[in-house]
């Protein structure tokens, strides 16, 4: 399964928003009944002071020295969320997994698992995220949570740019959620674009006609400049050769012109790569929007 390419800030914001929503769900649910023990209190102090990293250090120490019972699941969950929000998803996941394991309410445990999956998406650990979502989808405590898990799995497939898996997942969503067949196929084809192959095409086009790669990628200004500069050098070299000034033609062509020609090819390839990535990200965003809001 591909691990995905670009990871645009919008995605991160969306993942954070989802994390926030899941946190609110958890708070509203109030599944954690256990009163924090004394060691918990210091971890809570660190969290209250906004020191998520330090809370993680202390929580790890407590768990290592005293075992999983040293921390209440709520505290473990808060430490995991603090680490996730401070951009350390790899460190957050073990805490979230432990919080889910220590929670007695199955619905709450499912919600924490889904939070873990979203954190894994932030870490671009798509196979692990898919596994988490699929597990909740299969063994979730209630229907609404299972459907939500399915949607999140579809989002993960889209973000991983796995077109076939995304198509199958979206088609399997209950209640006709997702785009109609024609649009779905088009969007799925788009997220499967091979960016590297596109870049090669752009480079070849610019090698054949300077600026053609830039022009076809939608950068007419860059295309005109490339054509002007390389055309100027080509014209100069032609006249020099026609004049019999071989050495001068070599000086102008190899000494100056070649650099601009190679640069033009690189620019053409880069323009096609950027256009393909943008198109793919737009299609991913559209697909995720069409999957609809959380139930």
């Amino acid at each position, binding site marked *: 399964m591909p691990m995905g390419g670009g990871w645009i800030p919008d995605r991160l914001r969306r993942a954070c928003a989802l994390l926030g929503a899941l946190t609110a769900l958890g708070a509203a649910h109030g599944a954690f009944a256990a009163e924090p023990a004394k060691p918990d209190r*210091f971890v809570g*102090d*660190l969290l209250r*002071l*906004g*020191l998520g*990293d*330090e809370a993680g*250090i*202390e929580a790890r120490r407590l768990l290592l020295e005293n075992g999983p019972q040293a921390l209440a699941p709520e505290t473990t969950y808060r430490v995991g969320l603090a680490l996730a929000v401070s951009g350390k998803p790899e460190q957050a996941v073990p805490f979230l997994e432990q919080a889910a394991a220590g929670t007695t309410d199955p619905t709450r445990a499912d919600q924490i698992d889904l939070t873990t999956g979203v954190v894994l998406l932030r870490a671009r650990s798509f196979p692990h995220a898919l596994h988490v979502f699929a597990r909740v989808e299969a063994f979730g405590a209630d229907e609404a949570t299972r459907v939500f898990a399915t949607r999140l799995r579809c989002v993960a497939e889209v973000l991983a740019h796995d077109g076939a898996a995304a198509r199958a997942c979206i088609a399997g969503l209950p209640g006709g959620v997702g785009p109609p067949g024609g649009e779905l196929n088009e969007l799925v084809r788009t997220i499967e674009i091979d960016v590297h192959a596109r870049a090669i095409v752009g480079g070849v086009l610019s090698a054949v006609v300077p600026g053609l790669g830039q022009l076809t990628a939608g950068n007419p200004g860059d295309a005109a400049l490339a054509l002007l500069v390389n055309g100027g050098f080509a014209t*100069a070299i032609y*006249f*020099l050769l*026609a*004049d019999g*000034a071989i050495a*001068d033609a070599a000086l*102008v062509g190899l000494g*100056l012109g070649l650099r601009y020609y190679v640069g033009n090819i690189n620019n053409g390839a880069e323009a096609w790569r950027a256009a393909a990535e943008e198109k793919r990200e737009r299609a991913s965003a559209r697909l995720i929007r069409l999957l609809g809001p959380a139930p």
Partner: protein
Amino acid sequence: MAPASAGASEPGTPSYLELAERLRSVGSFSECAVEALRFAYDHPAERARGFERAALCLSLAGRHDDARRLMLALPSEGGALDGPGRLRICLAEVFLLELGVPACPSLERGAPPDRFHALDLETLRMRTIRERRWDDARQQLAAAPAPAPPDPTASAWREQDRQLIRRHDALPRKSPVLAAALSMVVPGLGRVYIGRWPDGLMSFLLIGTTAFLAGQGFYAEGEGSVRGWILGGVAGLLYAGNVYGSAVGAVVQRRDEEAALMQEVDRAYGRRLDP
């Protein structure tokens, strides 16, 4: 063996604060902050001290924002903001230029002024220097009264800031207009003027050779010489680029030197974090 708390310390057993100091000395700043805060919560009477040490560790880790927030949270955590605590906030704000309204000038200070009050005032000038308001910093330094009470640290900071301002005054101030004009007269001379003589020599040789070949073409084949026109065009482009490059070089040179000076300022101020 776990470090002893103050109430139950055994001879030779370090406290959590000592453990924090050891962790700080080996560069484990997050762990240092944890231990200092553990000390703070274990010893309510010394909470301010523990918070201040934790904030120092956070500052040393480059987390000035966290350090400032920690110290500002101290009153709500049951501690009083004392002199070292205020200084910690002021020092953190030296590195937080994006702050709209720094808290340092408005912190309540007791009377009579202590050494921390004097150092607080020094941090205001440090912040001005980091904002690159060199003229303001020079005026502040000239108008500043002698530290009261006399404090060697404050005096040393002032002297170091004086040296930094002098170094800023000595930064090269090459005129971009003059550099461009010199390169117009003799290609490459503008670059020699800004101190980059190898670039100047290379520009002179490149433009000179191209122009010479162009002239040779015109001389041999007359006004209709293709070689002359093409090489003349190339020489003209190189000439224009060299004039422009000389002007830009003068600006960039000053910018680079100032950036190097600012790095030195940051290093010097980083060393002041634990006065």
